[in-house]
């Protein structure tokens, strides 16, 4: 029986000719990553298994969640992983000021590549599926075991195939497409499964669109999201990594639990309303409602903090000012992206419009710091989760959107259509 793309990568890493959905395997790991929340908790567990990590080139730490450290406890946690990385002689330790948000910096620095088997102690580790890798989020005990042993058990997932055709409209991005998809299948629509994206529409998606879409596979409950490797992927890999990589593709007779067809030309700018990423409403539906006045906008994160996102937000904000009742946090996801924003004049556009431009950090996305909300406040955010209390007070509300919708909303003071920014 044929295998999906995910199954082929897993079979290769388990040293097996073939695997089938539901099979329990032990697979070798190419990258094992943790951050400043999950990493410190893993260290005492690693030490119960081994004095040394399995491979100093494959174990990675990124302090990005509560950094620059917001309080003493967070500082102690960052210190613990910093010292451990030094003691173990790790090749990849990403310090503040030299790196950024984990799921943006790992592809950018060439740590992850196509065909790899990757785990990260962060649920959005599924981002690297954009590069044609198997990549999934795990907890602390799993990551500790991966760090010590270099392998981990997996249940081989079945898959849903998403056939993408057509070309998205000018204000439709990977964010709109993935919110549209989660709205269609539900927040547990791909529970335990792979989301395998195929179809000629993928050629119309930038790498940044694909990172955004793979990033949010977890919001449909998926184990991983994965894209085929095409010319654009190979160009990205050649520009970013020195690693040898391997290209896998699904067998023609691979079995899928379901096939979902999406015509990208029909997807509209789409926003996820509180309190689920699957609570999708198109901009047209929103325009037919009473205005939703907002207090805050966040543009950044592992979902939408890349250079394409910054350019799109800046193109909307250029020559406009942020609504007097709204505060805006723009957070480029890495130092390199931040520098590009400066070089291209985007930071001037943001600051002239009245935005705060913050240093790379996960900060506001999970209510950590640098943008925590008070009771009753509403935020349009380019992040990935709009759960109760995610960005602060339990009575604050989060609307997930693309950088363009977020920028248009920042100007209008309410959730707004980026197609109509010039119309006022």
């Amino acid at each position, binding site marked *: 029986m044929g295998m999906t793309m995910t199954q082929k990568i897993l079979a290769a890493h388990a040293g097996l000719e073939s695997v089938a959905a539901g099979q329990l395997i032990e697979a070798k790991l190419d990258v094992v990553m943790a951050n400043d929340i999950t990493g410190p908790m893993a260290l005492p567990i690693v030490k119960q298994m081994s004095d040394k990590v399995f491979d100093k080139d494959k174990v990675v730490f990124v302090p990005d969640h*509560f950094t620059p450290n917001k*309080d003493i406890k967070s500082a102690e946690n960052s210190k613990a992983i910093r010292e451990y990385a030094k003691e173990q002689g790790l090749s990849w330790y990403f310090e503040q000021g030299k790196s950024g948000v984990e799921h943006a910096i790992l592809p950018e620095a060439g740590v992850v590549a196509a065909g790899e088997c990757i785990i990260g102690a962060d649920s959005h580790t599924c981002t690297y599926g954009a590069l044609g890798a198997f990549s999934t989020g795990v907890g602390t005990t799993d990551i500790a075991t991966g760090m010590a042993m270099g392998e981990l058990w997996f249940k081989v997932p079945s898959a849903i195939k998403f056939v993408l055709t057509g070309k998205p409209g000018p204000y439709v991005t990977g964010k709109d497409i993935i919110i549209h998809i989660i709205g269609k299948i539900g927040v547990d629509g791909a529970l335990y499964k792979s989301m395998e994206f195929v179809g000629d529409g993928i050629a119309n998606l930038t790498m940044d669109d694909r990172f955004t879409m793979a990033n949010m596979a977890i919001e449909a409950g998926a184990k991983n999201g994965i894209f085929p490797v095409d010319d654009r992927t190979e160009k990205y890999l050649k520009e970013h990594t020195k690693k040898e990589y391997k290209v896998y593709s699904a067998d023609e007779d691979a079995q899928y639990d379901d096939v979902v067809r999406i015509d990208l030309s029909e997807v509209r700018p789409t926003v996820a309303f509180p309190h689920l990423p699957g609570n999708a409403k198109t901009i047209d539906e929103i325009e037919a409602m009473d205005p939703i006045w907002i207090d805050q906008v966040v543009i950044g994160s592992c979902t939408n903090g890349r250079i394409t996102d910054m350019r799109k937000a800046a193109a909307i904000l250029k020559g406009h000012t942020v609504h007097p009742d709204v505060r805006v946090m723009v957070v480029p996801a890495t130092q390199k992206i931040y520098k590009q924003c400066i070089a291209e004049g985007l930071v001037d556009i943001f600051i002239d419009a009245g935005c705060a431009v913050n240093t790379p950090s996960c900060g506001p996305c999970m209510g950590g710091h640098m943008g925590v909300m008070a009771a009753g406040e509403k935020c349009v955010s380019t992040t990935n989760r709009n759960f109760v*209390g995610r960005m602060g007070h339990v009575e604050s509300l989060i609307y997930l959107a693309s950088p363009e919708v977020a920028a248009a909303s920042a100007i209008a003071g309410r959730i707004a259509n980026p197609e109509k920014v010039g119309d006022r």
Partner: protein
Amino acid sequence: MRALGHVFKYGDNVDTDVIIPARYLNSFDAQELASHAMVDIDPDFVKKVQPGDLIVANKNFGCGSSREHAPLCLKTAGVSCVIAETFARIFYRNAINIGLPIIECPEAAKGIDAGDEVEIDFDSGKIYNRTKGTEFQGQPFPEFMQKLIAAGGLVKYTNSKK
């Protein structure tokens, strides 16, 4: 092994941000985390929960972040078992890895209400609702996971293989 306690009942998609909000994740001390368990969905939970009590929920329990702090805070707060229609996959793995018993059982999730007294026989997977006099059969764990649980979690299992 058996569990016996009263039930806290929740709905669909109970996420890890409400089980243990990120503002408390600057610590991984189990007792401290337990003192904030479920605070954003049920502020009275930590005041009311007794050792042995159970959580029963509907679909996709534990969705969201990979924070192992979530099953850890529930276990430390005294929760003896979580029964749900389905679990989010990272929470499922984390719960097994730290030794918080979880059972997938859609019938039990529907047939048990808040406050019911429920007993579980983990060996047979049988769930008894003592309040209503009903009985449910939970899904048994696959053999590999039973081995993991019998070894006392993933770390002990890994060390036993060396």
